[in-house]
């Protein structure tokens, strides 16, 4: 299955586009997305400041609500990665 990850803040470094398509085994949850992001960052972005991103980011569902690590993803689902925030 595949999900679309909408990128915000520091996570925008992960793609030239606003979204990143991620291939996942069927019935994956958010925890699996964190694992895959950890792998991508260690392989391609080890010199960036993204090392802690998979651990510190939250994820929003299509309803713009925080989802926990057990949240089961659907094929073609659109979720947002929310790195640590800091407006004002």
């Amino acid at each position, binding site marked *: 299955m595949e999900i679309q990850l909408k990128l*915000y803040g520091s996570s925008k470094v992960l793609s030239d586009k606003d979204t990143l398509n991620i291939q996942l085994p069927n019935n994956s949850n958010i925890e699996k997305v964190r694992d895959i992001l950890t792998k991508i960052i260690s392989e391609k972005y080890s010199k960036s400041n993204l090392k802690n991103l998979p651990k510190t980011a939250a994820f929003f569902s299509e309803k713009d609500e925080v989802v*926990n*690590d057990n949240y089961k993803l659907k094929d073609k689902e659109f979720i947002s990665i929310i*790195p640590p925030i*800091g407006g004002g």
Partner: protein
Amino acid sequence: MSIHTALVKIEEEKISSEKAKKFIVSEKNGAESIFIGRVRNENSGKKVTAVTYDAHDQAVIKSFQSICNDAKNKFDKHAKIFLEHAKGYAPVGEISILIAVGSGHRDEAFKICRYILEEVKHQSPIWKKEHYADGKEEWLPGHSLRPKKEI
């Protein structure tokens, strides 16, 4: 209408303190408190030229409304509140956030203003990328929204 909130595309439009003052004025209110945050030219010893603000628009507006309603319920149900935040590329000196509060008394006006600012920093999905005089740029660290029991 007692609450106005918006994300302002700063390359297209400016955040206006005059607009804010007009919104909060009321004969019922004896106090007005206005907080203006601006992009400053230095951070941690680095010379800053501008800041780019990124935002999850829908979630930001939802959080702004929730924060302002909480502030009214907590301090003054009759308060008038104006809250705007910049989005996009903002050079040094540009207004990044404006909070204006009209309330019955000064104590509530100050408290609501402070409460909103702190809650925006802790709840609203907005990110800052600083641009430096040496050409480098950096996303600033912030507050994680991941449920604490999971970290």
